């Protein structure tokens, strides 16, 4: 049964996933088992295949949506059983930057890896990042920028986190077309990821 669910996520069978999940639950399989032994391993494979160029963006998206279909059913049960998310990520695109596709891909994939993800949108100022960190108390803050002219707001967010005394409570990861590992090191971010699959790996290694 667990393997069936895993295969359904890999194949992106959105229509059948709710029924499969309910069947598994009816058979007495626990929500946590479904998550740990079917959904998360499936998304690990999805990420790896994307990184290796064997899977394309829509194939990744449909798998993530399928997983979400299962997670929606499992969530109340997981909460009831006291199962905590693997970690919490607050993610947004920085001030002056409207681009959301890359950031949304990362949000979806990290969520697929079992994180609670709070996607706070685009054009997020340093103050708004700080506010979101205070409110949601995440383990990680993710920042995205597509332009060299907006990338410069990333260190401002890090400074604002420092000034608010929050920097040591959160890890900072960054990404986006003009961003590099060198830039991450320079501005004192904890990590850089070039794409959604590596961002997922990075998020896991940071928590």
């Amino acid at each position, binding site marked *: 049964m667990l393997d069936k669910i895993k295969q359904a996520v890999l194949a992106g069978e959105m229509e059948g996933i709710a029924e499969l999940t309910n069947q598994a639950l009816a058979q007495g399989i626990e929500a946590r088992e479904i998550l740990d032994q079917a959904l998360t391993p499936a998304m690990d494979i999805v990420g790896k295949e994307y990184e290796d160029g064997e899977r394309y963006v829509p194939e990744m998206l449909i798998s993530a949506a399928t997983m979400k279909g299962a997670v929606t059913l499992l969530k109340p049960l997981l909460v009831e059983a006291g199962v905590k998310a693997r970690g919490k990520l607050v993610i947004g695109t920085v001030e002056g930057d409207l681009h959301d*596709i890359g950031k949304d891909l990362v949000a979806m994939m990290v969520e697929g890896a079992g994180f609670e993800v709070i996607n706070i949108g685009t054009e997020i100022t340093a103050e708004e990042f700080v506010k979101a960190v205070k409110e949601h108390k995440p383990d990680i803050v993710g920042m995205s920028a597509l332009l*060299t002219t907006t990338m410069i707001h990333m260190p401002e967010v890090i400074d604002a986190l420092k000034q608010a005394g929050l920097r040591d409570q959160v890890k900072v990861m960054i990404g986006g077309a003009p961003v590099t590992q060198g830039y991450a090191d320079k501005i004192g971010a904890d990590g850089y990821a070039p794409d959604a699959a590596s961002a997922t790996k990075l998020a896991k290694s940071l928590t």
Partner: protein
Amino acid sequence: MFLIIGELINSSRSQVGKAIQEKDDLLIRRLARGQAEAGAQIIDINAGQSMENEVSNLKWLIGVVEDELGRDVRLSIDTSNPDAMEAGLKACSTAPVINSMSNEKKSVRFVELAVESGAEVIGLAMGEHGMPKTAEDRVEETRALLEKCDRAGIAHDRLYVDMICMSVGSSIEQGTQALQGVRRVKEELGVKTFAAVSNVSFGLPNRHLLNRTFLAMLIEAGLDGAIIDPTDSGMMNTVYASRALLGRDNYCMQYIKQQKRGRRK
């Protein structure tokens, strides 16, 4: 005539970024000549990858490309940094193109630069309310952009409005929304439309196929210009073939000329 801007001299392409860093003018010359010979009327110049040196790198690129092509080809200055835009416009010896000016609040200086320089402008149908999702958004952003131009005294015929193509790989309706955007903007606002076509295929296999198929559709919808790789003969063939088939190329002369040129090579 359909406006073709050649996209290859872009510092975010690793080869070009490296050539800029090492001041390797041979690669830049080859890219400039290749694009001009393939039929690009305008060569795009982007040095945005290294922010600290953007202005000096931009000037260097402009110098190299102008030295290679003389006054035969015009340049478009591709940056979101107003200081670089100003320096780039001044460095051009033929009439430059501003690539690009959005509806965002921060575009004020780009509007001023457009007024001062009298340059043609690629305007972006985005910014007032974020990235456009629907055809309606594209029409509204274009309307706002035209109002901005009216207030500044920029004539509409100096403007090409980029319809913001986004990947069908991450959002399946983006192809049709951009197409309808072109149709409606042409019909309702009568301004020239433009597209960065290759975005449409991001994250998908065989991007060439999607790009040139979409280009044919956009041209049918009324597109007036595009930024593409002109050395990709599939793309250029598509431009000429589409225009001939749509009756926009009298006696198919441009199509024939382009095919003969290809045969000679």
